[in-house]
């Protein structure tokens, strides 16, 4: 089975702190994604990556950056956390190529910024 593992399920951080959310997948997927999930807003794409060291902005990249130094690992960085970044963050991955490939999600990371 495909496994997408997010390192932290629940985090509480202070305003202004630098926050790292880590994600690892074990299926050699080329594409990896970070989404943010908020009630009533569905899933919003923050950043995605087609390959190592490749990244592209999604729909809501402001306040976030990403790093992909190895194929299996995709990190989301909040340079200076703010209270409006309190949310559930979902990492996902899939094979590149056909658009019909299934996306595999991690369990999510609940971030609270106080």
């Amino acid at each position, binding site marked *: 089975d495909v496994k997408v593992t997010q390192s932290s399920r629940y985090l509480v951080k202070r305003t202004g702190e630098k926050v790292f959310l880590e994600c690892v997948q074990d299926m050699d997927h080329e594409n990896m994604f970070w989404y943010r999930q908020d009630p009533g807003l*569905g899933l919003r794409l923050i950043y995605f990556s087609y390959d190592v060291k490749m990244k592209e902005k999604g729909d809501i990249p402001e306040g976030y950056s990403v790093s992909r130094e190895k194929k299996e690992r995709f990190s989301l960085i909040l340079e200076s956390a703010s209270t409006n970044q309190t949310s559930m963050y979902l990492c*996902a991955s899939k094979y590149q190529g056909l*658009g019909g490939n299934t996306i595999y999600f991690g369990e*999510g990371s609940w971030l609270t910024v106080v």
Partner: protein
Amino acid sequence: AQSVTQLDSQVPVFEEAPVELRCNYSSSVSVYLFWYVQYPNQGLQLLLKYLSGSTLVKGINGFEAEFNKSQTSFHLRKPSVHISDTAEYFCAVSDDREGKSTFGDGTTLTVKP
């Protein structure tokens, strides 16, 4: 550009009743369509997907969906729901041009005893 509209944000239903969760999409090219389910405090998992061929797609847990190209819809159905089907359901669309998918806002299905 792609877009997905899930027409109902909340669907309450009694156990053993049938249910339909509605999804409309728009795209300028041929698309692939998906339904994902998210149980409480978990990530999303694939329920079913339409790639090509038969417009009626069967998925896990007794769910099925029908692709209707003329109405640009991909509604999800189950003839008899269980308490355990209580979850949030997301419709999604993708195509071969981009590597990313577009998700709807989700429909919360609540099954009551």
